[in-house]
Each structure stands twice: as structure tokens, then as C-alpha cells.
């Protein structure tokens, strides 16, 4: 098992005048968010969250408004100090860092993209994208070159000398993304980065992100409250409620095995055919049995939406499911698929 890129362990964050004093109520007595607010007038932001984020993955963190997503992500670069718990990045204890080490962590190891863009309004697009490099102290000529590269990559060529206030929301967030990518940090923190955008532009931005990720392989922590976005982007999805983690897993786990009503509520409107993959249906063949002849073969990662047409045309409406490594996972039938879609 490889070491996680980011490890969050038993993290607590309580907002209020004396967080340390009320921490025992939450940690040892299991007091929840509402009770803590009623009885002790403190807000429970993050409640005992542990999360290992693997390298080169897109880790999605999801939850309703106020569930503690922004608070959680801000602990990774320690914009917020925790009340209790541990955070390590590449094995280094983030909470033990002094100011200078912390600045270096933020300058070189990670960067951030914000929901409301948070661009510097008095700087041009070029100067905004180059901000992280400037803070690092990179020479001007190099900043110019690297900045131009990212401006081109996010499709803003020609807008270099414009000011953020003159661009549309979608364009502003491309600037935010380019600014985040320009420092070449391994870790990208994105707090509802696309939530303020129109659905179409949002879909575009997701595509841009996936395209870039296929090539850059960063470790991305992506916050969203939108399930479709989570399912489209996330290699792994963590769901928060009232500051606590209620379920963690890949899209299938969440759709096929929702942990509770909160999550069932979340997933009730999604198009399951786009999420469930053949892997989840594959019934292994009997020990030693040869696979039936004449059946079409589909990769295990095919979503049902794409698999169903092939299934309906196949003999016995059955297909063979093949894993990535070429081995056979088993067979799947159209009947199984229809049942899976209805939960």
C-alpha cells in the first residue's frame, strides 16, 4: 500500500470563544453539531474526519451547504487551524510547521482555486496568473513564459492585458485555474471552483479539468455540492454531513450502497445508467468453466448506459465483462442491468 499524498486524521474544528474547552464534549461524549450550538454556543465545523488522499487522484468532498467542506479543505494548507487532529502532506506534519515552512508549503506544494474566483482586481490576467510565481520570487522573464503557457492552455490567449472585472464568470475561473496550475504544485485544492458558473460553462470547465488531469496527474481535492459533478470528476468521493464524514468510496459504492437516508436523498435524482459500471454487475463464471462462445466482450469500466444496447443485441442478452488487465470478470445480463438501474 502506498503512502497517501495527504493524510487527515481525526480532525476536529470548533468555532467559538473556547474551542478547546468544548472539544471533549464532541470527542469523548459524541455531542453533535446542533446540541453543541444549543448548549455551548460553539459551531462544530469539522467532526472527527479522517481521510487519506492518494497521489494523482481527484478526491471529491461533497455535502450540503454548511456541512464543513470549505472548513475541511482549508485545513490542508492550514488557512484554518484545527482544534484537534493531524494533517500530513507527503509525510510532513503540517501542524508542526513554522511560518516559513508553511509559506513554502503553500508556495511550492499546493495551490488553490476559489468559488468566487478571488482574483486580484488591480492586476491584469497575465499578472494574476503569474501571482504565485511572483510570490515564489521567480525571475520576470521566466514568469512571463510560464504564465503565457497556462493562459494558452485554458484558452485565454489574447486576454493577457485585460482586467478580471472585464471578463465573464467562466473566463474569470479559467484565470483562477491557470493561476493555480502555474506554480506547478503537485496538489490543487478546489473549493466549489465551478459552482458559481452556468451549467453549460460548468460542464466545459469540468472537461478542461479532466483533460488537464489526464496529462498532469496532480492530486486534486475538489469540493462540490453537486452530485453529478462529484460523479463525473471524482476517483473517490467523501460525503460530509454536519462536519462528520458519512460515507467514502467511489461513485458506484455511493450509488449502489448508500450509507444512510441523507445519501439516498442525494442520489435519488441522478442518472444511474451513467454511474453504474459493468464491474458492479459481473457475475463470476463457475470454477473452471469456459466462457460461453459468441458473446460480445465489454470493458468492466463501461457504464450501463453504453453497455445496454450491446446487451440487448447479444445472444441471451448477455455480455462478457473484461477487466483492465485482460482477465475475465464474469458475465452480465440485461435483466441484471435493469434491476441495478431501479436500485
Amino acid at each position, binding site marked *: 500500500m502506498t503512502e497517501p499524498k495527504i493524510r487527515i486524521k481525526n480532525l476536529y474544528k470548533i468555532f467559538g470563544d473556547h474551542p478547546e474547552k468544548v472539544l471533549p464534549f464532541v470527542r469523548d461524549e459524541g455531542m453533535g453539531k446542533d446540541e453543541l450550538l444549543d448548549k455551548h454556543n460553539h459551531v462544530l465545523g469539522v467532526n472527527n474526519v479522517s481521510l487519506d488522499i492518494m497521489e494523482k487522484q481527484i478526491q471529491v468532498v461533497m455535502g450540503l451547504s454548511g456541512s464543513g467542506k470549505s472548513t475541511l479543505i482549508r485545513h490542508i*494548507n492550514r*488557512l484554518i487551524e484545527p482544534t484537534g487532529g493531524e494533517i500530513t502532506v507527503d509525510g510532513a506534519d503540517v501542524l508542526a510547521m513554522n511560518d516559513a515552512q*508553511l*509559506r*513554502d*508549503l*503553500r*508556495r*511550492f506544494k499546493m*495551490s*488553490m482555486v*476559489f468559488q*468566487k474566483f*478571488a*482574483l*486580484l*482586481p*488591480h492586476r491584469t490576467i497575465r499578472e494574476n496568473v503569474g*501571482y*504565485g510565481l*511572483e*510570490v*515564489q520570487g521567480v525571475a520576470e522573464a521566466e514568469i512571463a513564459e510560464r504564465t503565457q503557457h497556462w493562459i494558452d492552455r485554458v484558452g485565454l490567449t489574447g486576454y493577457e492585458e485585460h*482586467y478580471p*472585472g*472585464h*471578463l*465573464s*464568470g467562466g473566463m*474569470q475561473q479559467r484565470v483562477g485555474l491557470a*493561476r493555480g496550475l502555474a*506554480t506547478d504544485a503537485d496538489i490543487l*485544492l478546489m473549493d466549489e471552483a465551478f459552482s458559481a458558473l452556468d451549467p453549460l460553462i460548468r460542464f466545459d470547465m469540468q472537461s478542461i479539468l479532466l483533460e488537464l488531469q489526464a496529462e498532469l496527474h496532480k492530486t486534486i481535492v475538489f469540493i462540490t455540492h453537486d452530485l453529478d459533478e462529484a460523479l463525473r470528476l471524482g476517483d473517490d468521493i467523501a460525503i460530509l454531513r454536519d462536519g462528520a464524514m458519512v460515507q467514502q468510496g467511489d461513485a458506484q459504492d455511493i450509488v449502489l450502497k448508500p450509507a444512510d437516508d441523507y445519501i439516498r436523498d442525494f442520489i435519488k435524482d441522478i442518472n444511474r445508467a451513467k454511474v453504474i459500471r459493468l464491474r458492479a454487475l459481473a457475475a463470476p463464471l463457475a470454477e473452471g468453466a469456459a466462457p460461453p462462445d459468441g458473446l460480445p466482450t465489454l470493458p468492466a469500466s463501461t457504464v450501463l448506459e453504453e453497455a445496454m444496447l450491446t446487451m440487448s443485441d447479444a445472444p441471451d442478452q448477455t455480455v462478457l465483462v473484461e477487466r483492465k488487465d485482460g482477465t475475465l470478470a464474469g458475465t452480465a445480463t440485461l435483466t441484471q442491468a435493469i434491476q441495478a438501474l431501479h436500485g
Partner: protein
Amino acid sequence: MWEFLTDFPAIGRRELAEMKKAIDEAFKGFSRTYGEGLENFFDPLLKFLVWFEKLLIATPWPIILVIVGGLAWLGSRSWKITAGAVLAFIVIGIFDMWEDTMATLAIISVATFLCILIGIPIGILMSRSDRMQALITPVLDVMQTIPSFVYLIPVVMLLGIGKVPGLLAVLIYAIPPIVRLTNLGIRLVDTEVLEAADAFGASSRQKLFGVQVPLALPNIFAGVNQTIMMALSMVVIASMIGVKGLGVPVLRAISNQYLALGLMNGLAIVALAIIFDRISQSYGKRLQAYRGQGHD
């Protein structure tokens, strides 16, 4: 019994007189011991003021007009304001107020320059902590509300009559707005933008000079504008303690009931005020050009 209620039980007249005398004596003692040292301290400032005033008066008027026009254009980029400024100076010259205007211009420029030099750092300091703000705000309140004549007394006792005490009086009155607006401007900077700077690892220096001060500039500039206006409004009072300029004839007009003289010089002060105001306002607007038609 009734008397006790109608006459406030004040300290005895004699005790009061003695107390006042003691304070006066103490201050006079202070002034005898340190007055000369202070004067020496301010000597370079005095020399500079005298030199600058002489320079303005000695410079041929067409050159001054060109400089005024040039500065007006640089500041406002507006032909109207530039032409208005030059025209006002021409009228001032025609009515024989050129020399006094140059003297006033000299002291106002130096006062404004010093206000910026001292006021902006104090404003920055004030924005950094709430304690500092709580400490400085009442001092600024006093500076702005205490009648100028009251602080003229110790200033004159310490430094006598002349340009430097006049300049100090102008500074005390004119510096609060720039301090306040620098503080306010920095405090109003969007916390999300600051958070972004933090997230990219900016040091507090990088945040101050790269984000906070630039974004506070429109407010700081409004402060500069107000400071200039307040300095101009002190011209007459400053002339009472020996500052040359447009205030002197106004004072003469008051004591001799010369209506026309008072009006002309008063209007010249107003003209200067309007010119400074328009130029600095349109410069301030240009500083905000990036705000454009925002998509917030």
C-alpha cells in the same frame, strides 16, 4: 441649600489660578529648555520651505503656467480641467496675486507631501491591529475638532512665529483624513482576495504592498484630496502666525474692512481648491479604471 444647586461647586478661584499658572510655568520651562533644540531640529525643514517658496516666486510665470498645465493634464487627462487650471492662474496673475499664490502653493505642497509621508505609514500601522486603531482614532478626533487657535498657543510658545509653526498647524489639521482613509481602505480590502494571497504563500509584506495598499489606493487618494482641501482651508489661520501667502491680504482686509481685497484673495484660495480637487479626483477615478463594468 438652593445656592449649592444653582452654582456648580467649582474649585476655588485661587486654586484654579495657581493650577493654571503652574501648567503655564511648566510649559514655559519646557519651552526654554527644548525650544532651541526643536528649532534646530526643524531648521532643515525651514530652509527647504524658504528655498521652495523662493524658487516658485523666482521662476518666470510662463514656465509656471506650463508646469501647472502639464501637471493638470497628467493628473486628469482632461482638456477642460487643464484649460481651467491655466486660466485660473492667468486671472490670478492679472489681479496681481501671483506672488502670494506662489507662497501659498509652496506651503500647501510641502504640507501635503509631509502629510502623505507621515500619514500613510500611520494609517497602515492603524490597519494592522485593532488596538492601534483604538489608540489612534481618539487622537485624530481631537486633532480635527480642537479649535486651531488652541493648539497654536503651545506651538507658538515653543517655536515662535514663522513658517515652521504655521506648517505644523496645517499638518495637525490636515493629516487626519489621510490617516483615516488609509486605515479604512486597507481594512475594506476583500477578505477573499487576501485569503487567495495567503493560499499562495504571500508573506505579510507581499500582501501589504502587493495587495492591500494597491487595492486601498482609491481610498488613500480620497484622503490625499481631503488633506489638500483642509490644508488650503488653514491658509488664513496660518498667516496669523507668520506664513506668507494669500492669507495675509485676507487678514489685512478683515482688520481694515477692505471688501474687494478680501474677496479677491478669498476667491483665489477657492480657485486653488477647485483646481486641486478636480485634478486629484479625476486622478483617483483613473486609479479605479480596472474596476470597469464588473461582473461580481
